[in-house]
């Protein structure tokens, strides 16, 4: 019909051509911004620095236009675009259709570029204190990263490719991704990945500009905290999703894709602590640069691992042909970063005095080394299939490798979390050793309780008491704060003022508290999980870890895009409905729907294995203690990060004991 033809023509013209035109314009603008920013920065041309920065904002705007057009194409079911056809269909709920924006290769790259554009622009707008030169280099580096993504989007993986014939319906989203988790986990993880580019850009810019003072730390730390917060949330949401959707009773499988998201998080955790040593004591300068750069390199490495499919993973839906592009990008970033660090290593001497081993500085340094140790464990575990495949037979490690190799390191990190906040800067005297009484008493008490309860597993007997020690340290620090507040006269206005003044410290303690709660949840659900496979006739019951479930029968339900075989079970007054969903439109792909009854004590987790010809149904039932503590602890961490990162930051000046370059830079 003419109207349909006209509609189609308008869509093709407006969406596909304006979309791909915006990407091409964005690429030109990004390259222009990169070249101009580097040149203007090196010649200190303030007008051109502004033009280069504005070109970056314009790049972000082009990416935003392309993103808005792709989203429009998705929600209007414009199947003339190959991307829309491949990742959505008419029966998919509209929220999931919208989530198709980052559900496929091309869209997720565009989403990454969009986050880079938004956060990069925000970081440049907030960079006035750094001086024009450093900010110009940062703009140049961010524009270079954006250029890479736009080159891939324009040349290799355009989301605006038009099909020769427009199909009446699309192929639909992978069933595993058809879940509420799809709406939050991938965008947060991808945003976290993209956010690591900001601290990297400012660190590399500081090196380029020869600015080694703590100014770049103060600016970068906030964006590193944003990246860290996003990545923490993304990892937790991924665990939550795996737990609720994949149906194997767990939440973390040491899958390569999980590992590569975990490693930048570890590196940034190290940086967030070591950066304080530079701010307060003028030490660990080269180390801080190295950590920020490492976090970004790990992100690019991770993206290469996920997209290339070079090591076996459950995230195979992300595999594509752009792997080599990311390998090339990783190579360029690696050469650039190492070259820059080597070039500037002469100026990266420490200004502060060295501190004794038992001091806050020493605790941070040890914690950093332990975190790097964990990164090494995870890295080699992830790379083993590849490395071993190159020299002979391909070998794969299982979860026990990671647990045994990183477990002692995590235990030492927990011990440091308990003692570290109590250790003063420079020197630890008798008051510190006395203050250790609290965490030591708390861990001894919890250890005694565990032993009395009959717990004999060494990991649990070490991990849970250490988590208790961390909690007691946080409570002790908060109690000291309350004491200070009372001595000052009490009252709400003073409490708010005290919290506001020391929000970074109290936010960090809250994050520590959240992590301790997460550790207790991880330990309990890991070490005390109970599992049972049963086959039941309707009316029969089964008891697992004191929870009695009665099977009341199965039925088949027809839904919009799939059919479900639902088996009802009663647990007390509650009905659980584990199911198996079959997607006829996707070649009969089948997916399990887990039923979970959650409480603060334990989750009862029921998976329907299938129904049998005699009318019976087979189930796998797990009782997972304290899993809700993981999610609650995660929420506490996020609140801590938000609390510690809001409002204007009090500038902590690095001790000036050597010549500090001027605002313009020294090189």
């Amino acid at each position, binding site marked *: 019909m003419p109207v349909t033809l006209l509609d189609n023509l308008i869509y093709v*013209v407006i969406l596909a*051509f*304006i979309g*791909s*035109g*915006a990407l*091409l*314009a964005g690429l*030109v*603008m990004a390259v222009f911004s990169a070249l101009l920013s580097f040149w203007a920065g090196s010649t200190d041309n*303030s*007008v*051109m*620095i*502004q*033009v280069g920065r*504005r*070109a970056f*904002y*314009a790049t972000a*705007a*082009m990416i935003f*236009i392309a993103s808005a057009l792709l989203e429009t194409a998705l929600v209007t079911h414009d199947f003339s675009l190959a991307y829309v056809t491949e990742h959505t269909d008419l029966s998919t709920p509209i929220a999931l259709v919208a989530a198709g924006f980052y559900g496929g290769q091309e869209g997720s790259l565009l989403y990454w570029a969009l986050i880079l554009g938004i956060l990069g622009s925000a970081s440049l707008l907030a960079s*006035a204190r750094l001086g*024009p030169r450093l900010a110009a280099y940062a703009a140049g580096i961010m524009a270079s990263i954006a250029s890479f993504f736009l080159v891939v989007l324009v040349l290799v993986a355009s989301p605006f490719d038009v099909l020769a014939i427009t199909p009446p319906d699309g192929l639909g989203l992978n069933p595993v991704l058809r879940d509420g988790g799809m709406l939050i986990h991938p965008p947060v993880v991808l945003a976290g990945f993209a956010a690591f580019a900001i601290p990297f850009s400012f660190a590399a810019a500081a090196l380029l500009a020869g600015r080694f003072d703590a100014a770049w730390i103060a600016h970068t730390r906030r964006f590193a905290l944003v990246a860290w917060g996003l990545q923490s949330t993304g990892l937790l949401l991924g665990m939550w999703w795996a737990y609720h959707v994949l149906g194997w009773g767990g939440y973390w499988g040491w899958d390569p894709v999980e590992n590569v998201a975990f490693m930048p998080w570890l590196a940034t955790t190290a940086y967030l602590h070591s950066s304080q040593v530079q701010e307060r004591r003028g030490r660990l300068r080269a180390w801080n640069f190295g950590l920020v750069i490492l976090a970004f390199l790990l992100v690019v490495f991770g993206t290469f691992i996920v997209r290339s499919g070079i090591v076996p993973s459950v995230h195979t839906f992300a595999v594509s042909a752009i792997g080599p592009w990311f390998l090339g990008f990783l190579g360029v970033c690696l050469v650039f970063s190492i070259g820059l660090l080597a070039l500037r290593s002469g100026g990266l001497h420490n200004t502060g005095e060295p501190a004794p081993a038992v001091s806050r500085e020493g605790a941070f340094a040890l914690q950093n080394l332990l975190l790097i140790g964990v990164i090494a464990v995870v890295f080699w575990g992830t790379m083993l299939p590849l490395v071993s495949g190159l020299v002979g037979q391909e070998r794969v490690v299982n979860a026990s490798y990671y647990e045994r190799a990183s477990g002692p390191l995590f235990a030492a990190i927990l011990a440091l979390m308990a003692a570290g906040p109590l250790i003063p800067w420079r020197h630890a005297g008798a008051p510190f050793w006395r203050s250790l009484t609290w965490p030591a008493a708390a861990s001894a008490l919890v250890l005694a309780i565990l032993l009395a309860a009959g717990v004999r597993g060494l990991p649990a007997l070490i991990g849970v008491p250490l988590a208790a020690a961390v909690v007691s340290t946080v409570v002790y620090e908060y109690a000291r704060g309350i004491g200070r507040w009372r001595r000052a006269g009490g009252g709400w206005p003073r409490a708010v003022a005290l919290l506001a003044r020391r929000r970074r410290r109290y936010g960090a303690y809250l994050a520590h508290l959240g992590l301790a709660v997460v550790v207790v949840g991880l330990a309990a659900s890991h070490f005390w999980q109970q599992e049972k496979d049963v086959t039941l006739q309707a009316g029969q019951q089964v008891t697992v870890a004191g929870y009695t479930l009665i099977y009341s029968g199965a039925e088949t339900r027809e839904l919009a895009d799939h059919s479900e075989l639902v088996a009802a079970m009663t647990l007390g007054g509650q009905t659980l409905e584990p199911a198996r969903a079959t997607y006829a439109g996707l070649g009969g792909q089948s997916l399990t729907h887990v039923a979970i009854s959650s409480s603060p004590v334990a989750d009862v987790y029921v998976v329907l294995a299938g129904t049998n010809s005699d009318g019976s149904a087979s189930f796998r039932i797990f009782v997972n203690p304290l899993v809700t503590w993981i999610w609650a602890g995660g929420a506490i961490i996020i609140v801590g990060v938000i609390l510690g990162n809001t409002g204007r930051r009090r500038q902590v000046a690095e001790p000036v004991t050597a010549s500090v370059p001027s605002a313009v830079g020294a090189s």
Partner: protein
Amino acid sequence: MTLIVATLLLFAAGPFVLWPLIKTPEDGVEVESR
């Protein structure tokens, strides 16, 4: 077609990007630049 759209978009973005070059000194220098 893509090329034409890209050119038009770049053209449209021109005044914003080049504003620091376009404005006269009397308009005032942006504080952050110096």
